[in-house]
């Protein structure tokens, strides 16, 4: 029975080792500031893509408004730290709670919609959030919020990312998570099996939005300034691309997608005029050769070597 917990501990230890190695490389200056910044960005994007994956990949609800929730978390966070001197962790959590609460409010009516209709509705909601922020002079309007204290560092990003991964992994491997997956697979059958589909759609949406809010807080405290222009629907597209590239319904996929997209974008920084063209072509080619994403529904922990390390409990 405690195999599951043992596996968690192994993963945690593995995570800490990865952190120690990366942190060491940064302190030694082997990883320069630019790549350090990008590693942090990858971490934040992993939180975004894995949380979006909970909504899109696991629960099958096509949301295109994730950048909007990120914006809410970011702005609530920076107002609290900059204007009210709330400690960083408190501001992050408050940002996450605010985004989650908004996700809940928005989810209640809109999650009745299906497929493309839900997609365009959430896209619209994301834009509404952004436009409303843009019209609030208190947070700097369209020009952005300035003088944000620089609290985010690699350790914050890494451990919050790790927490997010554990949270979502544990969630999807439970009866709650199975209820969400059942909705994705066949909503009518899920309902017939006693799953309160509305409740679980909203739950997934709220949790996803809350983590996006926390990621927004991390993002904002990394850049001294945030502006509504960083949270457009184009940004929601980018998060969706991460999820689909990595694999819908796979946490490993979410990580790989976030890594891939952020990395490509950074690696092409020296060729600005070709960057987006190459990115677009890569995207199309990847969809040709792996339409289900790099990982599909599969987790890396189910693959060969990891299986041997992590002996799985029972038959699963």
């Amino acid at each position, binding site marked *: 029975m405690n195999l599951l917990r043992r596996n968690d501990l192994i993963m945690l230890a593995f995570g800490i080792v990865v952190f120690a190695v990366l942190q060491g490389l940064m302190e030694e200056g082997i990883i320069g500031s630019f790549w350090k910044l990008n590693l942090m960005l990858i971490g934040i994007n992993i939180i975004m893509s894995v949380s979006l994956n909970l909504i899109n990949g696991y629960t099958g609800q096509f949301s295109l408004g994730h950048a909007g929730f990120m914006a809410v978390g970011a702005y609530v966070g920076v107002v609290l730290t900059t204007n009210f001197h709330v400690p960083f962790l408190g501001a992050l959590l408050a940002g996450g709670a605010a985004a989650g609460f908004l996700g809940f409010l928005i989810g209640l009516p809109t999650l009745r919609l299906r497929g493309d209709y839900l997609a365009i509705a959430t896209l619209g909601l994301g834009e509404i959030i952004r436009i409303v922020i843009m019209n609030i002079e208190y947070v700097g309007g369209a020009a952005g919020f300035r003088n944000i204290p620089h609290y985010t560092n690699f350790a914050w990003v890494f451990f919050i990312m790790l927490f997010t991964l*554990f949270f979502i992994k544990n*969630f999807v491997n439970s*009866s709650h998570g*199975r209820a969400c997956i059942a909705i994705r*697979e066949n909503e009518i059958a899920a309902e017939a*099996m*006693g*799953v*309160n589909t509305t409740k679980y759609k909203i739950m997934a949406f709220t949790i996803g939005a809350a983590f996006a809010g926390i990621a927004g807080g991390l993002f904002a405290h990394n850049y001294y300034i945030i502006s509504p222009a960083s949270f457009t629907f184009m940004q929601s597209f980018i998060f969706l691309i991460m999820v689909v590239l990595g694999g819908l319904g796979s946490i490993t996929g979410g990580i790989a997608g976030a890594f891939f997209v952020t990395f490509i974008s950074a690696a092409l920084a020296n060729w600005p005029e070709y960057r987006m063209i190459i990115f677009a072509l890569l995207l199309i080619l990847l969809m040709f050769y792996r339409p289900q994403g790099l990982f599909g529904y599969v987790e890396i922990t189910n693959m060969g070597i990891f299986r041997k390390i992590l002996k799985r409990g029972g038959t699963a």
Partner: protein
Amino acid sequence: MAAELMRVEDVSEVFGGLKAVSDFNFYINKGELVGLIGPNGAGKTTVFNLFTGVYQPTTGTITFNGKSIVGLKPYQITQRGIARTFQNIRLFSELSVLDNVKIAYHCHVKYGLLETVLRMGRYFQEEKEIEEESMKLLSVFKLDDKADEMAKNLPYGAQRRLEIARALAAKPKLLLLDEPAAGMNPQETKELMDMIRWIRKEFGLTVLLIEHDMNLVMGICERIYVLEYGMVIASGHPEEIKKNPEVIRAYLGGGA
């Protein structure tokens, strides 16, 4: 015995002027195995959808276990103890056979969100129980060796069996089977019927069965309702039904 489990009185269902079911009266006692037959388009599946909350009756009452279930959502009805299978199989096709069954335990899980994500408290105990019970169910339906296979890769007959296993995992008092033998060959059908008899005894279930094929129902059901154009044209023991001229007319056509 003969305690009543479900009673349906004067239920009608109107779809935009079309009466799919009219003045439907029905009861089923605890432990009974009842059949619902009728030609194509007679409204059998509509009746199931009314029982399970997919549709709401336009008029009439449905009482289950002494309480009205009209107005409840499908998942609430499942939680009250009615589980069903579907005429057109609705498995969670991209998931493993085991996960299909595990999902149906959903409404019996007590651990909360916090216990889930922190993996403490009742989580491990309950997950272990679910896994064991699921495997037990699968072995009843001879699916235990395919537990890790994706549901959509199962052969047709096995998919039908998995749907029944999944419905049972919801621990219902009343099991509704919508054409469970559709598309099966006679040998498979016979095995299935034996299995239904057996699970009814083993799990102490009440079963309501929709079938197209009259002979099959005759062999297994204790009572039968015959539907035509949304109306009950006959009900009673198989022997009575066999002799009923209305039923013969409905099935053989022509004017008797």
